[in-house]
């Protein structure tokens, strides 16, 4: 009998060990899959977004002729604002490619240069009125489609009808490039402009400032309220039904979908209190309600971790309970509280769904000047650009994501650093 079972066990051992090895491989595979997903996600975004940080310029000879600009020889500022820079650019292009004829071809030619170029030209004349009457070689911003060809993103093997950049445009661009008239520069406008319908003129400054204002409101509401609530629950709350109710509510709010907070904001802040739509003020209020549970829960953990001896010592020398908490417990718990708050702020920075509900999806060209101006935030700007059909916006979206992720990584690194320091104590 014993002989039989031993051989049976020995016979099965091989199988069992094989299964054990297989199981370990499943585990490794699962971890690896997670890594692969993360890698694909990041690589996809970075590879799509990197080209957006450069922009192509085309050098053309512009004739600042007063007649062509439809201004007098010594133009006033108003005259320059009304001047026909667009016509001048078009004429310069025609002069550079004299054999282009036909309306369709001409229009294709004009489309090499961004619509925004005339404003750049106007600004340079406003700065230096002496340009009038001269002929200058000027670098002008390329149209996003032309730019994408110059960046090598256009598949020329494709049928002409299937691509935005046509054969004749490719020919012109190639000849411009051969003459050294094209140049790639760092995309400054991406960081200094608001939204635009033209990909090459669109920037994230308005969205970044909107995010900053919104986060500021969120922080100033959620941080004090969250910390004070945590202090109450951890240090003063009596054990009764009301306290239980509050605790249950905080735990449940932490799991409520963010979009529901948006509905709350829409119904209460906008429709009932009639606060302005699309404003960072309301956005910040909604996000602060959303991040409040995170801040309360982490602050409570931090306060709990403060050794009781500190409280006892303070109470022993005659401090009141409130003095004990505010003068002794909170300073010790501060790194932990800040860690939790930063994580909550990072959540708020990446959040977009509730902000869609309160109208922060507007097309914002102007940089907001305060917390009640209509504005958008970075994640919502990403959402809007991702929806745009123009190809040029895809890389802008990815670039905006890279900026957003940089901020998030910075915030999380700060939180980790604080936590490390905290743990050392």
């Amino acid at each position, binding site marked *: 009998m014993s002989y039989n079972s031993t051989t049976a066990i020995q016979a099965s051992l091989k199988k*069992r060990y094989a299964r*054990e090895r297989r*199981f370990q491989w499943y*585990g*490794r595979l*699962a*971890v690896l*899959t*997670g890594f692969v*997903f*993360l890698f694909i*996600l990041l690589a*996809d*975004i970075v590879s799509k977004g990197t080209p957006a940080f450069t922009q192509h310029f085309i050098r053309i000879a512009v004739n600042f002729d007063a007649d062509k600009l439809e201004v007098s020889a010594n133009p006033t500022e108003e005259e320059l604002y009304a001047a026909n820079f667009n016509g001048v650019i078009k004429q310069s292009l025609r002069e550079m490619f004299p054999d282009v004829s036909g309306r369709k071809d001409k229009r294709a030619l004009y489309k090499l240069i961004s619509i925004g170029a005339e404003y750049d030209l106007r600004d340079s004349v406003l700065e230096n009125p002496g340009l009038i009457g001269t002929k200058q070689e000027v670098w002008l911003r390329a149209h996003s489609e032309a730019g994408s060809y110059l960046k090598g993103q256009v598949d020329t093997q494709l049928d002409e009808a299937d691509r935005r950049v046509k054969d004749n445009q490719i020919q012109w661009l190639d000849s411009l490039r051969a003459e050294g008239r094209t140049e790639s520069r760092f995309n400054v406008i991406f960081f200094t402009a608001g939204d635009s319908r033209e990909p090459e003129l669109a920037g994230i400054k308005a969205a970044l400032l909107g995010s900053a204002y919104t986060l500021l409101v969120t922080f100033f509401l959620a941080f004090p*309220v*969250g910390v*004070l*609530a*945590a202090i*109450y629950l951890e240090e*003063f*709350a009596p054990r009764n039904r009301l306290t239980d109710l*509050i605790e249950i509510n905080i*735990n*449940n*709010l932490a*799991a*409520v*979908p*963010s*979009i*529901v907070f948006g*509905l*709350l904001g829409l*119904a*209460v802040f906008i429709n009932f*209190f*009639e606060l302005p739509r699309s404003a960072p003020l309301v956005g910040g209020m909604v996000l602060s*309600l959303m991040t409040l*549970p995170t801040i*309360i829960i982490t602050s409570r953990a931090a306060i709990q971790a403060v050794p009781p001896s500190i409280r006892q010592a303070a109470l022993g020398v005659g401090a009141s*309970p*409130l003095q004990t908490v505010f003068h002794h417990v909170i300073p010790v718990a501060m790194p932990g509280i800040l860690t939790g708050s930063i994580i909550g702020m*990072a959540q708020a920075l*990446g*959040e*977009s*769904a509730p902000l*869609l*509900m309160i109208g922060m999806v507007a097309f914002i060209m102007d940089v907001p000047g305060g917390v009640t101006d209509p504005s958008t935030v970075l*994640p*919502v700007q*990403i*959402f809007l650009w*991702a929806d745009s059909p123009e190809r040029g916006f895809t890389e802008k979206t*990815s670039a905006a*994501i890279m900026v*957003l992720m940089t901020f*998030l990584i910075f915030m*999380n690194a700060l939180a980790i650093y604080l936590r490390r320091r905290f743990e050392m104590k």
Partner: protein
Amino acid sequence: MQTSTVILFLLAMCVVVYNLGRKRSQVLGQRIGGYSLLHSLPRHYGYMAAAWAAIPAIVVLILAMSFEERWLAGMVAEQLPPEARELPADKFGLYYNQVLGYAQGMVGAEQLDATQVAAGDYYRRLADRFASAKAALAFLAALVGAIFAIRHISPAVRARNHVEGIIRWVLFGCSFLAVLTTLGIVLSVLFEAIQFFKIIPLSEFLFGLEWSPQMAIRADQVAASGSFGFIPLLVGTLLISAVAMLISVPIGLMSAIYLSEYATNRFRAVTKPVLEILAGVPTVVYGFFAALTVAPFIRELGESIGLSVASESALAAGIVMGIMIIPFVMSLSDDIINAVPDSLREASLGMGATMNETIRKVLLPAALPGIVGGILLAVSRAIGETMIVVMAAGLSAKLTANPLEAVTTITVQIVTLLVGDQEFDSPKTLAAFALGLVLFFVTLLLNVIALYVVRRYREQYD
């Protein structure tokens, strides 16, 4: 005077009152022979005086602000010509909004008729008068409070205890905000949802098989068209969530098992934070990834083997949502597996079981309730997730269980119904709140069950 300037002035006033209170207590202290004979430090008397000035003023301001719009609207409406007042509610809303727009300088007078301009001017006069009255009242309240407090100061007054009492109430108020938020969510969503169910019967909403709110052009068509059936949305939501769970549960659970039972400490210390990056990526980024990378990839893959795949397939949204939830499932399972006492592991290993037999036959059964709870939490996450599905899932409600087709979800419909200009009492807008109500209660239910399961399980080993 603007509210913000009033608040600034009140703050300045509080500083003055604080100093007055402190000075007075010092004077009183010196009179009886030194500060140490006062019950509290001079600054506590200052704080007390400042608090007594601030609290009545704040109460007045809040009361005034919450009644301001309504009172103004009522007064202006009385001044309007009778033909304007007798307009139906929605037309009147438009008419009144123009008046408001004119009064706030956003609409030019030339676009409006004379009665509206007159009403707008009247509104502006009234608003100015109301604002001055509000400011005056607030200052008066602050002044009365301050005078009362300063006169009240005497060496025997327990100023510190008094101030601390007020602070305790503030602390309580801050934590009570959580209850108020929940109440606000429930009430605001419920109120609008009830309005909605007055137009669309509840049974039709809960059991209707068709959802097409966009068809409702005129308000009176809606009830007849019967296009507010919620079942397709529920099926779509569950379909996408199921795909997400199929991705996240095996990967998350296996990763957690491997990391807690097999991996070396160093491997774990590196791997876990890296995988948790997935949890920190904003959902809008996942949405972009799903819509522009995963969905086209899946469609091409499907077409290469002869399947027709919608460009906004449930599969793409579900897979990406699954990726998002992996770290969530992982850290929850990790906590729960680690909570299983080592004695169980050691007993099993001591009997000669291999590690994987121990895991499958001892650890997992012991951890099962907790893992189920964690999965329920993950499901509630998936159901409430918005941006991924808004960007990568479809808009038209289709009743199908095929993950290759485009389906829509509850959250997608909430967003599409509410983004952009809307009238606040149209059934379309109200439907979004009804969906919000369902979403809130479904996720609440899942969370309550999950927490209950997890807690019961924990008690077994404590």
